[in-house]
């Protein structure tokens, strides 16, 4: 069972659509939220929404199994340098239990959703690898597979 929560952050309707599509692939996903940046929404307003989705360190988001520590949160962002990423990376720099990844895609979202256990360094590495390895062009991919 996955011990951490997931927040999908991005521009417009992409987070909600990515979440819906991930559920199409792997069925209903627990402990996951999508937070889209609306056109014209200020970074401060978006930061409030993202913080609410991540949950406070001293809020209700505590697991007895973790000795009362707040759960880790994986924030998946759509675009490096975009406002959702900038806001999430600022939160992650201040809160060690928050991990911020940019360049999310369906493969990363599914891998994260189906992950077991806690959000440790090895899982973060695996998510980055899964995200990158699915980016291919068929001819080059075929040539590489054949060699």
């Amino acid at each position: 069972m996955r011990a951490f929560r997931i927040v999908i952050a991005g521009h417009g309707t992409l987070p909600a659509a990515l979440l819906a599509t991930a559920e199409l692939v792997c069925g209903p996903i627990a402990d996951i939220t999508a937070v889209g940046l609306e056109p014209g929404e200020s970074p401060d307003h978006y930061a409030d929404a993202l913080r609410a989705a991540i949950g406070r360190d001293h809020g209700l988001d505590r697991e007895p199994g973790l000795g009362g520590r707040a759960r880790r949160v994986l924030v998946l962002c759509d675009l490096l340098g975009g406002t959702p990423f900038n806001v999430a990376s600022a939160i992650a720099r201040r809160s060690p239990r928050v991990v911020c990844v940019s360049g999310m895609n369906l493969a990363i979202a599914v891998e994260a959703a189906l992950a077991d256990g806690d959000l440790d360094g090895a899982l973060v590495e695996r998510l980055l690898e899964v995200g990158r390895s699915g980016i291919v062009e068929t001819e080059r991919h075929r040539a590489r597979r054949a060699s």
Partner: protein
Amino acid sequence: MSLRLVRIDDRLIHGQVVAVWLRALGARRIVIVDDASAHDEFLREVLTLAAPQGVPVEVHDVAGGAVRCIELAAAQEPVIVLARSPRTILSLRRAGVPIEVVDVGGMGSGPGRKRLHRTISVSPDELRELRELERLGTRVQIQIVADDRPIPLRSLDSGQ
């Protein structure tokens, strides 16, 4: 003259800047001039994280930014200069930075702010500062993304 874009944007680096403007201008460096960010190590670091690999981000206060912009204006490397407010650009201009055109790309709404065009709003002080820039010979135009047709301030500002 390599200051490809001098832009006023209260969000500094964000999606429109990294996904559209960097590519449209072939810029290889982002220079941020902002006193608050320059004097805050945390903000500096978050801004540095926002740029893609291979695009260095410099964060300067107004005094240091003026010196750096003059140097970069004379160099070949294409750069984007970002500031939060017209006041900063006016300070750069007065310090001798050659700015032919300033692009107003992001100025949010709020109490006491007048809507100039679509998502661009200004306070009375900011409007005065933009007019002063025009008086000094810098053209002020609104262009949110690279595909938008630039709209000159003069065409929107009846009080000028």
